[in-house]
């Protein structure tokens, strides 16, 4: 060989010595081909669950919030738990696409598209709950500062729920635009392929979707600029949205909610659960859509490290909360945490602690964090744990607060479960449709990292020589 030096440190991000064309082929395949049996089975299950959920939502709107298990004392439970859980899940997408873009983490390219799609769908699911939990959903427009004829009626800018309205809607809009901008060159690729394949319908659809992308250098330059600008905009949102969501609790007087640690603790928790959800989805997708060479063990390991890190932050936050409750010397605060750990909902606290604090520590072992089956299992555990975290914060704090005379228990109703499972169904339905009609990997970006490792060339040239 010549004096060319190959890096020993860097592993290739895409395996299998892909050519540009191969990448196009691999990524366009699910869109152009027919859906497999597995896809149809998954779709049918998801769509049925989704319909069930929609039915439960309609029943709630039709009869009243009494259809749920809420009561005089516990006025929020599964509704807001689900809301925070879904918003949290959404965070991984933005983190991967925006923060990692700014940090020039190229490995993100194989996962950002589906992670962002997940963000969009998760935020949509999250948005269901603030609306659905309203007693009078038909007056939901009251939360927007609209000019009106009722006199001087205006929204209450002191209310964290109003901050939520702005935070979530901004977040959703930016995420959607960011995601869509990224999709444009890929849509254009499918359009161009359809033209060659003489598939008129597909060509028309993707022509519209691709906004007349021509692939000229100017297009690419603008694309890169917009992506950077949007990444810059989206990055603070990663931190602000969940901070504001956490203020729904932090600004209250309820012991167990009124905690200044909430914003960072919620953001860490959000990233923690978001990465877990990305792993859950991608581990399945790479198998079903045959993307093993794009989403590699290396990706999984890197995401597992993020989970381990954020999981540890969350664990520290839990312990800090306990310490602060004791240190505050406030009777109500102390009891809130004692009750969390040892009261009637001890099992939810125990589930939360096991799933969120203990289990991510297993990722210190390289063997475990590179084991796909284990990762899949753990990603689900983490999401269960994070759901419990929100449940613990919301329900165990308010079910026994200041006045013992008003203490009560919360029991979910059939409808509560239906609505939650239904949103998972809707989410999965959307995601499955996404895998069929959208390029699941950002192929245009991926093509920029095909030639990332020198050894590929030497291997290739070696082959040619022999």
């Amino acid at each position: 060989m010549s004096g060319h030096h190959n890096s020993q440190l860097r592993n290739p991000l895409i395996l299998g010595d892909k050519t540009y064309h191969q990448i196009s082929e691999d990524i366009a395949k699910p869109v152009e081909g027919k859906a497999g049996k597995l896809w149809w089975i998954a779709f049918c299950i998801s769509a049925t669950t989704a319909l069930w959920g929609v039915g439960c939502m309609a029943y709630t709107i039709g009869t009243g919030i009494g259809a749920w298990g809420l009561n005089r004392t516990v006025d929020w439970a599964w509704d807001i738990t689900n809301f925070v859980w879904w918003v949290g899940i959404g965070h991984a997408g933005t983190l991967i696409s925006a923060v990692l873009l700014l940090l020039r983490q190229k490995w993100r390219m194989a996962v950002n598209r589906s992670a962002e799609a997940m963000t969009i769908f998760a935020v949509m699911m999250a948005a269901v709950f603030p609306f659905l939990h309203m007693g009078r959903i038909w007056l939901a427009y009251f939360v927007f500062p609209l000019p009106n004829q009722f006199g001087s009626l205006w929204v209450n800018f002191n209310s964290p729920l109003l901050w939520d309205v702005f935070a979530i809607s901004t977040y959703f809009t930016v995420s959607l635009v960011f995601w869509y901008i990224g999709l444009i060159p890929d849509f254009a690729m499918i359009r161009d392929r359809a033209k060659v394949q003489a598939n008129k319908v597909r060509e028309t659809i993707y022509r519209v979707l691709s906004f007349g992308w021509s692939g000229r250098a100017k297009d690419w330059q603008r694309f890169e600029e917009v992506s950077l600008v949007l990444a810059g905009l989206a990055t603070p949102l990663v931190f602000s949205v969940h901070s504001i969501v956490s203020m729904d609790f932090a600004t209250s007087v309820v012991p167990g909610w009124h905690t200044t640690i909430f914003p960072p603790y919620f953001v860490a928790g959000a990233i923690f659960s978001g990465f877990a959800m990305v792993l859950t989805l991608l581990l399945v997708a790479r198998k079903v859509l045959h993307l093993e060479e794009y989403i590699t063990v290396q990706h999984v390991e890197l995401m597992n490290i993020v989970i381990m890190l954020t999981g540890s932050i969350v664990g520290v936050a839990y312990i800090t909360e306990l310490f602060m409750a004791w240190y505050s010397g406030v009777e109500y605060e102390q009891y809130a945490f004692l009750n969390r750990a040892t009261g009637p909902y001890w099992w939810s606290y125990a589930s939360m602690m096991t799933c969120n604090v203990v289990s991510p520590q297993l990722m210190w072992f390289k063997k475990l964090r590179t084991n796909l089956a284990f990762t899949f299992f753990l990603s689900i555990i983490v999401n269960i744990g994070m759901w419990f975290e929100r449940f613990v914060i919301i329900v165990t704090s308010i079910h026994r607060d200041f006045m013992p005379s008003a203490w009560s228990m919360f029991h979910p109703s059939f409808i509560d479960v239906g609505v939650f499972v239904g949103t998972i169904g809707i989410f999965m339905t959307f995601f499955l449709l996404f895998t069929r009609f959208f390029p699941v990997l950002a192929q245009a970006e991926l093509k920029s990292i095909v030639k990332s490792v020198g050894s590929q060339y030497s291997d290739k040239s070696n082959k040619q020589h022999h």
Partner: protein
Amino acid sequence: MSKTKHYWKGIEEKENSPAFIKQKEKEFSDFIPVDEIFGKQSKNSSQTPRRDFLKFLGFSVTAATIAACEAPVQKTIPYVIKPEEITPGVANWYASSFFDGTDYCSVIVKTREGRPIKIEGNKLSKVTNGATNARVQASVLSLYDSARLKKPYKDKKESSWEIVDKDIKDKLAALAGSNGNIVILTSSVCSPSTKKAIADFTTKYPTVKHVTYDAVSYSGMLDANQQCFGTRVLPVYHFENADCIVSFGADFLTNWVAPIEHAVQYGKARKLDSRNKVAQHIQFETNLSVSGSNADFRYPTKVSELDAAIVCLYNALAKKEGSAALKCNPVEAKVMTGVEKTAERLWANRGKSLVVSGSNNAATQCIVNAINYKLANYGTTIDMNNASMVKQGSDADMAQLVKDMNSGSVAAVLMYNANPAYSYPTKDFENGLKKVKLSVSFSDKMDETSSLCNYICPDTHFLESWNDYNPQTGHYSLTQPTIRPLFNSRSAQESLLKWSGNDQDYHSYIKANWQAGMFGKQSMLVLFEDFWNRCLQDGVFIVESEIKPAEGVVAPAATMDIQAMATQVAKASEGKGKFELALYQKTGLGNGNHANNPWLQEFPDPITKIVWDNYVTMSPKDMDEMGLHTLLGQNEETNVVKLTANGFSVSLPAVPVPGQKEGTVGVALGYGRSKSIGKVAEVTNGANAFSFASFVNGNIQYAALNATLEKTEAVYQIATTQTSHTMMGREELVRESTLEEYIKNPKAGNEPEMVSVSEDIDPSKKLPSNKANLWEDHERNGNFWNMSIDLNSCIGCGACVIGCTSENNVPVVGKDEVQRVREMHWLRIDRYYSSDTTKENKELGVVARYAAMEKPSMADSLEVMFQPVMCQHCNHAPCETVCPVAATSHSSDGLNQMAYNRCIGTRYCANNCPYKVRRFNWFNYNNNDKFAAFNPAQQDEFSRMVLNPDVVVRSRGVMEKCSMCVQRIQAGVLEAKKQMRKIKDGDIQTACAQACPTNAITFGNSNDKTSDVAMLKEDPRQYNLLDSYDTQPSVFYLTKLRNKA
């Protein structure tokens, strides 16, 4: 360059002819062919141009859409000729009197547009002094009960008054002719005109006998007074004059004899006055009653030992006096100690004490009389010279009647205000009734008795009828109708008059009576009409000349053999079983008269906080032994136990009550009513416990000493509004101290928590936690509405809860929803038990300690705390900041307001409310079939008339809460404005403050420094709930003081 060039559009513009100028002003210079498009011609022509077609299409679609949006037509019928006294939107108030054979109350009735909607106490009455109780407050809803009979009935079929009148008259005449016995069976009658009507009826049919029977009998007391004093009446009690009150099983605050009067007097006796004096209250009892939970010392005592304890007390006092002791059954050592301590206290307060007993045993009551005589209480706390007429029933007469009925010697029974088929202890009455040829009931319901009768002649509700009452010697009052009878019913008195051949209506009859009798007893007014109108307006008429001075100790008759009495008492309390059963009446439902009233069914029992059920109350220790669930909560099911006593058994859920004496159980009367009395009774469970009662020594005893209890496999879910029973060591909730401590330091038990603050505020010292504040204060100009709640006066009776329900259209949600913790009461009364474990108990680990603190004390020294909690109207309100749409906001006069129209139901306010007083409309309670049976006041076409038109009925999805009766505040403010004056203290009363018999609640403007509430705000006992959170409530509390001296 400065000017732009102007180009002419044509030669016309250049010439600028007048024709052109005229044309220029028109928007369309060309003629618009309107006629061609919309005219006849175009319609007839077969051609429709495309544009026209689209126009027509657009117009028709829009027109059809708009037409479809038409709102449903609701018909309202305005007054054609407006009645003089009715102004729509302005309430009329009428003075009246409530008496249902149990409770007497002088009331004023609020009517709107001719509908009675609210009942309040009449302050002019010297008997009830403006107080009410839960049952009186709720009685307005019973008026609109659609299960009331709408016609007279003959042989269970609807009939008409003509047929019924003719039949009954004929039969009565025939029976009287054949010398058949006719009996009028009534509950206590204290109406002079009713008595006269009965007398007239007796004149017409000479074989008539009047028997008086009370569902819950006081015959023993009456008989005792007959023996001791020669008159068969109850005395007038004066609890307010007592410094030491001792009760043996008498729940005198909510049920015994005349509870409303007693509650008022007790309120006075327990009010901390300038002398720093509070009456001491000692209670010996089996079940934990409302009276018992207010006592300073409470000695749980078995039923069988209650009477013996009275004899022991007699002996203890006799020893002090140096007179002879009586033969006495031994009592438990703990009770004996109590009796001795009580004797000390009574002896020290001779002439200022009062001993009462709930026993219906004449012998026991004789000894109670003897004790009170020894203590020289006659003339000060007991007024035997004047009589209370509200209880007159005779058990002996009733027993004789039942015997006669069964032997077939009674030909006719007419029943008024009595329901013995339900409340008589044995089935003998029902069997006897079948043998009676003519049975007539005046009941307005198809109840247990009336459904067995040949004829039902439905009586009118008291709000539809005329009547007069004489509840106490010298005190008279009138009942006047506030609405025309809703149904084809007729007052019982009028029926009696008719059948006696007097066609006069009852109104003229009473008037004539009063003209002949009452009018002459006064000399102020010369014309009878003036006198009559005055009496109607006041509702009461007091004949001072009839009221004898209370002074002068009445000695029991010398003939009374006190030793014999003691022997009889000893005998009566023999024959003990495994368990002893004490029957009791609930504060809400009483003897079951009002079982179809949903407000009372959903009224939380002051002690157990359970709604919609009766149950067996048990000592938790006994329950542990029997392996029954002792956790009373929303999730825990209760075990059903089979209770057998006196040859009768029922299966009821067992409920733990900490103050219950071990080895005893309690069951409430008034449940298990016939399903035919209405929809509410239909959905209520529970069993009739009257069958446990039995005759002992000729009087009905509401106890059984031979009860056995069996655990069954069945479990039952009860509904309760409070599932945690102790304060968990949070002493800042109900702050209390003892009278002794208070005298030493008026701030005893009320020291503010001190906190360290940041150096720039005050580096040197700590601040009270309610002074460390980050918020800006509201400006308080004008009125500042405040409410004070004196925890020392509150007896927990819950009259305020029903008053609030009635005033504010609070929905009833039913048992299932209460079980889901969704009751809607704007005002609740928290009941806490003391716990044996405190936070300071370091023997236990922290987890075990808190778990132990959740358990109420098992000791006899158990203490009970009541605390009414409604919206605290915080001036720094946590709810106000969190509402995204500003639906809850603060008023300039200190109220926390809810704008229902603006509320979208996020419920954040309720989560953030530290007092948990906000109530959410989970369903459309006023229009959801699920609630039709429970919530007639908002759903039933009749019952809806009870709604207060000043308060909106809330739709689903809206948060609601106490508004401090803002509608009343506004009405008061407007009234003052109209009169161009400032608001006077007392002008405005909230519904709860009005209903309170003990004046525990004081409402007013604290910016008016002379107002009561402003003075109370400066009281050293004043504190705010959760003071350390500094929400600055407009509602404040005064500490509770126990007289433990």
